[in-house]
């Protein structure tokens, strides 16, 4: 069995047994990256040299302190700031940008002994669901290179499915961890808002963004979560809680005594037959594991997409105001006055989708529209949170599909942003409410043969219990096998 197909916990056990070494694992991942990148384009920066140096250094030190990720190669989405490699957000605006500091989660990875092998591709500034709007070019789906990997953490998801690393960190603003995990056939976990510090994650929409782990199994995700979660004094929205103990999640093997809520609005309309069928069989699998299933309604979910695009775009429009060509980033040449320089730099530096969201966000905040859009949406957001709270008062987790369809063909929706926005309907409600959600493979679509994901959604800061339920459900779901669109 090739090293790169192991799970993170398997690799960890092999390291502990002396069956492999940090340099061997790192070399295997780098080799896998070299072999698959010509097809996938999942990485923006590959850190061959620093990764091998780091692995050798860790190897020399040994693991006397039992670092939880000692010698484990991982990737991070290229919107997490790193001191030793460019942070580009897949934007021409930040080509070559060197952050003067490491993101909190990157610090945590390093402290835990991880080896960062690459920074992964994404939709520009995480705005998108297909990793098509990247200035670095689109990432392809390892199951079918003609198709998108989902997004915005598409590079992380595609890379994991292809064995480029044992785990990755992505960010989820409206589904950007869960949906690409579903479309590529891996596991993605969006923690409760505030459980993981956002310090050093380049902001798209501050009250939605959440950093989370992605991996090939729930247990691997839980292990990464244990490393990155916990209070950070530099993020004022960080919850004052210690890093959680993930052992109970790994030990949960049954759903006996648990109640799952099937959110009827998330199963109605728009689902392709194969997605509905695969997710239905996941519900049956949950029952087989002992779960009781009830039907639940979230009456305000019909407004979720509109609410999300108002609020997230508004926040984005001002989060991206700092990209002005003054202190860093792209500066257009040949402009002789300040306003000309601003306008030319921003017009050149941002891609079309980013501009569209800046325009929408500027519009909903502008004089005369604030009350009708921004203020109104913030109120609907409260109603939606109350819906979720009521639903989660009646059951332990909600279960739903992640994406209405399996991976679509690249370019298919390029000129129809609204259709793409509406496809986020299954994921973004959770971000509005700030709750945790985990996406795991439900099986392959009967028609397309492409991965289908199913998600569980839980109560605020009940992340470990949610991961435990996902762990138990995963045991009853079919294995997907090896992706078919890349070199073996």
């Amino acid at each position, binding site marked *: 069995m090739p090293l790169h197909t192991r799970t993170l916990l398997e690799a960890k056990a092999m390291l502990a047994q002396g069956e492999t070494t940090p340099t061997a694992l790192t070399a295997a991942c780098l080799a896998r990256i070299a072999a698959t990148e010509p097809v996938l384009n999942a990485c923006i920066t590959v850190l061959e040299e620093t990764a091998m140096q780091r692995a050798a250094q860790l190897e020399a030190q040994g693991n006397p302190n039992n670092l939880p990720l000692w010698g484990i190669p991982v990737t991070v989405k290229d919107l997490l700031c790193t001191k030793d490699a460019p942070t580009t957000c897949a934007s021409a605006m930040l080509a070559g940008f060197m952050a003067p500091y490491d993101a909190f989660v990157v610090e945590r990875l390093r402290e835990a002994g991880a080896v960062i092998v690459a920074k992964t591709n994404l939709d520009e500034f995480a705005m998108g669901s297909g990793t098509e709007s990247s200035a670095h070019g689109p990432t392809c789906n390892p199951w079918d290179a003609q198709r998108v990997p989902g997004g915005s953490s598409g590079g992380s998801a595609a890379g994991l499915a292809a064995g480029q690393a044992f785990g990755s960190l992505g960010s989820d603003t409206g589904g950007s961890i869960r949906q690409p995990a579903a479309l590529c056939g891996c596991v993605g976990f969006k923690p409760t808002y505030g459980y993981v510090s956002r310090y050093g994650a380049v902001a798209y929409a501050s009250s939605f963004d959440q950093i989370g782990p992605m991996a090939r199994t729930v247990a691997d995700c839980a292990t990464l979560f244990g490393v990155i979660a916990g209070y950070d004094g530099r993020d004022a929205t960080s919850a004052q809680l210690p890093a959680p103990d993930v052992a109970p999640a790994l030990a949960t093997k049954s759903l006996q005594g648990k109640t799952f809520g099937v959110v009827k609005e998330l199963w109605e309309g728009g689902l392709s037959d194969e997605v509905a069928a695969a997710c239905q069989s996941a519900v049956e699998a949950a029952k087989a594991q002992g779960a009781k299933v009830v039907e639940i309604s979230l009456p305000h979910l019909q407004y979720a997409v509109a609410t999300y*695009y108002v609020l997230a775009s508004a926040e984005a429009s001002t989060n991206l105001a700092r990209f002005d060509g003054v202190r860093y980033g792209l500066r257009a040449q040949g402009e*002789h006055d300040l306003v000309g320089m601003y306008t030319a730099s921003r017009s050149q530096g941002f891609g079309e989708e980013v501009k569209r969201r*800046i325009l929408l966000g500027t519009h909903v905040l502008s004089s005369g529209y604030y009350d009708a859009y921004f203020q109104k949406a913030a109120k609907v957001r409260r109603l939606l949170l109350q819906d979720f709270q009521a639903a989660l008062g009646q059951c332990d987790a909600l279960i739903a599909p992640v994406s209405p369809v399996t991976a679509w063909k690249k370019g298919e929706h390029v000129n129809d942003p609204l259709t793409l926005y509406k496809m986020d309907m299954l994921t973004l409600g959770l971000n509005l409410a700030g709750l945790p959600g985990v996406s795991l493979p439900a099986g392959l679509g009967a028609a397309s043969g492409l991965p289908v994901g199913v998600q569980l959604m839980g109560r605020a800061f009940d992340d470990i219990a949610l991961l435990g339920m996902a762990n138990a459900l995963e045991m009853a779901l079919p294995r997907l096998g090896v992706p078919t669109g890349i070199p073996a």
Partner: protein
Amino acid sequence: MAVTEQQIRKIAGLARIDLEYGKTPQEAEAFMARLAGQMDAIVGYIDGISKADTAGVEPLFCPALHVAPPREDEAEKKRPTEDMLQNAPERKDTFFSVPPVL
């Protein structure tokens, strides 16, 4: 509420974006027409929230919970100046430099 091309231009101005930047007049015209169509569809869609009954509902701006109180007033120079200036497109000594404000 429909959005017109003129409105889009005004919003873009506020956001310091020139939508026609680097385009020929023909390209710009086609692009603006397409963008106006997209924006109109999006804005038409988000108008749907007006139907939600939000009477007496407090807005929710951020779902953060268990947040810490403000930090203590302790000063610390965290970053070497050179690290902060390394990405500057243009600088003079340790100043950032930009074209003149007209």
